[in-house]
């Protein structure tokens, strides 16, 4: 048990430290890389909890896809970050105030939080009748049985968001020459080439 505890403290400490470095590091690329480290250690914490499916999904979705695109964008930005940091002291009081308000709100909410007595025991066996199943099956059966409409609604929202993003950023420019693959494939030598027999010393 002591190894699991030590592992928890190790991963938790790295998560918190790298999360701090995300906002503290000067270089935005370093920030993204620390964010990835934080995701990774959170995944390790999920593994310690026995939620290996969530851990893998966290790595696949956040580290493997979201953070790659994030890194992609941040690397290509050409912003003078020292100039951006000049107003740091000027905005510190108001930023700190907002932070403190958020902290107090969170403390109020979490402090007044009580779990329903049956929820505590339900946590040990989230889905009735599939005890012993892997947590992939448990999540699947609870998600697609009890929450299927909410799941579909979430999917629809994402779809609408995706279409919205495409509509907003898509612009049709005139005069762009596009590749028409079918035309390229169906192009025959006879249409575009003329084979001539050239006698020596004569030319065409």
């Amino acid at each position, binding site marked *: 048990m002591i*190894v699991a505890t030590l592992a928890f403290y190790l991963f938790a400490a790295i998560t918190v430290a790298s999360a701090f470095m995300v906002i503290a590091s000067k270089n935005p*690329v370093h920030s993204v*890389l620390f964010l*990835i480290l934080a995701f990774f250690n959170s995944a390790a914490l999920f593994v310690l909890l026995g939620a*290996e*499916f969530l851990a*893998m*999904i966290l*790595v*696949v979705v956040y*580290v*493997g*896809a979201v953070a*790659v*695109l994030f*890194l*992609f964008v941040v*690397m*290509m930005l050409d912003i003078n970050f020292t100039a951006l940091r000049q107003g740091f002291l000027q905005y510190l009081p108001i930023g700190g105030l907002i932070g403190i308000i958020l902290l107090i709100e969170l403390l109020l909410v979490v402090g007044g939080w009580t779990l329903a007595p049956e929820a505590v025991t339900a946590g040990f066996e989230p889905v009735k009748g599939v005890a012993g199943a*892997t*947590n*992939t099956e448990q999540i699947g059966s609870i998600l697609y049985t009890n929450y299927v409409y909410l799941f579909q609604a979430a999917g629809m929202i994402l779809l609408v968001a995706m279409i919205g993003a495409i509509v907003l950023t898509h612009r049709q420019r005139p005069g762009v020459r596009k*590749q028409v*693959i079918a035309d390229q494939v169906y192009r025959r030598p006879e249409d575009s080439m003329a084979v001539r027999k050239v006698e020596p010393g004569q030319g065409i």
Partner: protein
Amino acid sequence: MVEFWDVYALPTIIILAKILAIVLPLLIAVAYLTLYERKVMALMQLRKGPNVVGFYGLLQPLADGAKLFFKETVVPTGANKALFLIAPMLTFILSLIAWAVIPFDEGMVLADINVGVLYLFAISSLGVYGIVVAGWASNSRYPFLGALRSAAQMVSYEVSIGFVMITVLLCVGSLNLTDIVMSQKGGLGLFNWYFVPLFPMFIIFFVSILAETNRHPFDLPEAEAELVAGYQTEYSSMAFALFFLGEYANMILMSGICTVLFLGGWLPPVDIAPLNWIPGIIWFGIKVAALLFVFIWVRATLPRYRYDQLMRLGWKVFLPFSLIWVVLTAGFLVAFDMVPA
């Protein structure tokens, strides 16, 4: 003290021994894969290939390794030093840790975890970081362009790899790699393997792993005609060697995944007397070597794709096709009541 030994020390030693037993043969396999590649390419081009160092060129990989080892490591002045050195290590480590879940034979696996397929998918999706970080940290134009190309390419082809894996999982009903191989066991021998019922997905998967490992004809991140050597331009000595080892270990890994998903892992093609005397790990090795041969064959045969063709193939051909095939497979399994329990 006895408890400490039994509970912590002994399992740790056993696991370390198992890791060594996987990594050492893997590194030797990587070394000889380079020789295999050069020999096969040479034969396809009517040359002899390396034949000077050692008998039949067998010591060539060691000579190459020693040469790289004794070269000087050059770190460019403008480079981000820490990230520049971390990037090759990251590539190499990621190509090794994925082997933890690959089953070489029944029960011959380091970690037989429930989410094996997802673990492999997660690790292979991390592979892009080594290349992107290398390109950025070099602080140089060509590596950066190579890194950007690579990021876009790997993210695109991961999507279709994901759908192919989902199709296989639908037929198996488990994410455990050993279960996947066992579900391909049956009276029909090699016709029970998933490459028969899911043949189009097998082809898509193979082409996608070519793109995922940045191999020909999708080696745009290191297209020498346009980008010098892509993300590796500024690397020399062991840092370069680590990229090289990582790339080849990834090729073997992806062939291993393809073997497990579609070619029945360690199962013999026909379950009859002389064939099933051969240990499963040999069958696994033969299948991986056959897939690696196709990797090299493709390299020796096909010209490089243009970048827009690459993106079109990934997003406009493979993605819709594999998505439709997932729906068809699911529909077929439900309609004929063949959904695995």
